[in-house]
């Protein structure tokens, strides 16, 4: 009997831990979808899902960049502020020029912001939390000064195009999927992606192997800056306006998405499909609260609890895995 029990436990620690660690998050998504779909028939409809893709495009695209930063061993706390700043840039430039120019200008500003973040972290060697907290504060302040804390509306109809649909699918949703797919392939299948994993997994080993670790690290912030730029453009276009402190929840949502997906904050472990699943979980929960007319205040409580639960589960699985190795 004891041998039986041992073998069941053995089987669990052999396959269960690995499966839980790898696909536990997918299981969570399935459960959440079943839960919400069983309560509301409006949830699993084409219109609702495409709407959601547009709604979550901004946070989702930034989460794509954030996935790179976190796997590379850092964290970017400036994304909320740079997102707003890029949106403002788009709206301001669109006052005088064509919307396409405004879009490109905003994305360019995002690239500059991200590059500065990357340089502060790698050249000045400031801890990434502090560095991006600092640049985030600066950007938030600059945004307020630039706009006098007033919304900047844009009248040009072309500016709103990104907020519209093609064949029933929002442009922004298509962009989100594009970022996820291309970002995922680059991360999983290219030499650059390997460098990101190696740098985050063991910085010293990577640099003694001759990898350009500083360039790799800086590039993840630069890319995240671009993502924030694209997200800012999308949000400004969707609303036809921009404002400093555009979306105070954005930073929290982005980090929740990446971490909930199972990408590890210690660096070196994670994947883009995880971020996609993270987006789906958060979007489903958020939508569920709306569809069921629940008090939105409870939503934050729920999100926070889920985040802690996910991390606790991941840390438990890691400990089991380590015990197995030891």
């Amino acid at each position, binding site marked *: 009997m004891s041998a039986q029990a041992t073998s069941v436990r053995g089987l669990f620690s052999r396959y269960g831990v690995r499966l839980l660690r790898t696909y536990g998050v997918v299981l969570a998504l399935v459960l959440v979808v079943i839960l919400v779909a069983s309560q509301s028939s409006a949830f699993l409809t084409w219109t609702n899902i495409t709407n959601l893709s547009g709604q979550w495009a901004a946070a989702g695209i930034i989460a794509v960049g954030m996935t790179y930063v976190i796997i590379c061993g850092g964290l970017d706390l400036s994304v909320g502020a740079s997102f707003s700043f890029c949106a403002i840039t788009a709206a301001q430039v669109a006052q005088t020029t064509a919307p396409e120019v405004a879009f490109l200008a905003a994305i360019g500003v995002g690239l500059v912001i991200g590059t500065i973040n990357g340089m502060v972290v790698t050249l000045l060697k400031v801890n990434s939390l502090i560095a991006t907290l600092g640049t985030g504060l600066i950007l938030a302040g600059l945004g307020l000064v630039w706009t006098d804390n007033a919304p900047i509306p844009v009248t040009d109809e072309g500016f709103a195009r990104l907020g519209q649909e093609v064949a029933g699918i929002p442009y922004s949703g298509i962009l989100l999927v594009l970022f996820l797919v291309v970002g995922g392939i680059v991360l999983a299948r*290219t030499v650059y992606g*390997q460098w990101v994993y190696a740098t985050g*997994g*063991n910085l010293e080993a990577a640099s*003694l192997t001759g990898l350009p670790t500083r360039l790799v690290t800086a590039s993840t912030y630069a890319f995240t800056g671009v993502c924030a730029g694209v997200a800012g453009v999308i949000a400004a276009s969707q609303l036809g306006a921009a404002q400093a402190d555009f979306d105070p929840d954005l930073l929290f949502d982005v980090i929740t998405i990446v971490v909930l997906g199972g990408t590890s904050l210690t660096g070196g472990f994670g994947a883009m499909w995880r971020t996609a699943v993270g987006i789906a979980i958060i979007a489903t929960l958020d939508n569920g609260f709306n569809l069921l007319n629940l008090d939105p205040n409870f939503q934050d409580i729920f999100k926070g609890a889920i985040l802690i639960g996910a991390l606790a589960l991941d840390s438990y699985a890691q400990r089991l895995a380590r015990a197995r190795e*030891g």
Partner: protein
Amino acid sequence: MTAARPVVIEARKVSKRFPGVQALTDVDFELRQGEVHGLVGQNGAGKSTLMKLVSGVHTPDAGEVLVDGEELRYGSPRASREAGIAVIYQELTIAPEMSAADNVFLSGGDRPAGWRSLSRLRRRFDELGGLLGLDLDASERAGSLSVARQQQLEIMRALDGRRRVILMDEPTAALGRHEREALYRIIGALRESGIGIVYISHDLDEVLQLCDRVSVMRDGLLVETRPREEASKDALVKAMVGSALATRPPLVADASKGEEVLRVDDLNVPGAAHDVSFSLHRGEILGLAGLVGAGRTEILRAVAGADPRATGQMRIDGQEVPWPRSVRAALRRGIALAPEDRKSQGLVLNRTAAENVVMSDMRDVARGGLISRRRRRAAAAAACGPLAFDTARLDVQVSTLSGGNQQKLALAKWVHRRPRILLVDEPTRGIDVGAKVEVLRVLRHLADDGLGVILVSSELEEVVEAADRALVVAGGRGAGVLEGADLSVDRILQRVFAVEEAA
């Protein structure tokens, strides 16, 4: 003599299985009061697992562990501590920013929750130090102490809880000769005071010198336990490798040397190396011999471009080149470093073996930026070929591999990249006898292929055995080059001590 003493810990027919491995089978083991009990065996023989059972970290699948005749409560470090069992792991558990005394009394000393009287702690610290014949400063920052001193802090910590059993896992692996002697004295003092010690080591001479009894493990079995008087090095090795007795392949050097591939003149690293000069030829293994702290690692790192403070002149193939200011610059000149600590500096532990091997050069495994898994696997398998690394394990996460296999990967990485000059820092530290021979053979193989190899090892015997010539380093300075019949442990030590006495 020891037979008369009472048994403190006894493992009775313990077995432990991990997924895929039967780690221990029906092992009987006992430790007596005031006994130093050596435990030897190849990597993976089950030494560490046995220690984890005896210290209550793991629960045995079958059998039992008795402390003073009562079964140990498994899985509770607290219960083990109360039973008087302390473990000193190879990786030390020192809090670097805290003082030496705070590290010793990490658990709060005799008043865990109460007010800490600094003068009392200090007195107790000096008391413990006196017991071991140590002279340590209680207020010194632990992180600024040498590894040997940090280890002494751990031993003091173990003593403070009135321990009766101390398990030591390769305590001398990171120590130099003098520091080892100091540890042996401490162990002698502990034995006198009636503490039982389990001593795991790969160094059989040390085990035979130090231990009252020696147990040999192989493939999860405890194959024999015998008193020191009845043990010999040959007998231990035979018991460790079993019937498949490894015949040592000769590591003789090819006498014909190639042209000079690297020449270093007046290398200076602030605080570590002064005016060091040497040359390296194609097809040659040059040993850097010296004691720990002599500057060997610093010299290697400087040549590999890993220390931006280094200055000196470098010639490659007779051509003067600027001193490499980065690892990448050194690699462009064909200089690669396999660093000292494979886990923290050499490998990315949560990636697969194949990914680690090809990390050094991905030009051939990617097409248009996209990595081909097939090519990656083929390239990694090719690089691992000469190292006898089991290619079935190429897709396994590196953290799950043994130390010997990890070391092979750290070398395979550079076999894959094919540098012209390979710097190897302590490639055989903490790996078993069989893997050691293989690693040294690979270095010779690479040299025969035309590489210049520089080998740093704390085991002088190894330098003598594997190197064609050796540069003796002492106090950060070159103390002459030995070769041929002059290359012997005695000669190396003569040179080292000549410098130390002059200083």
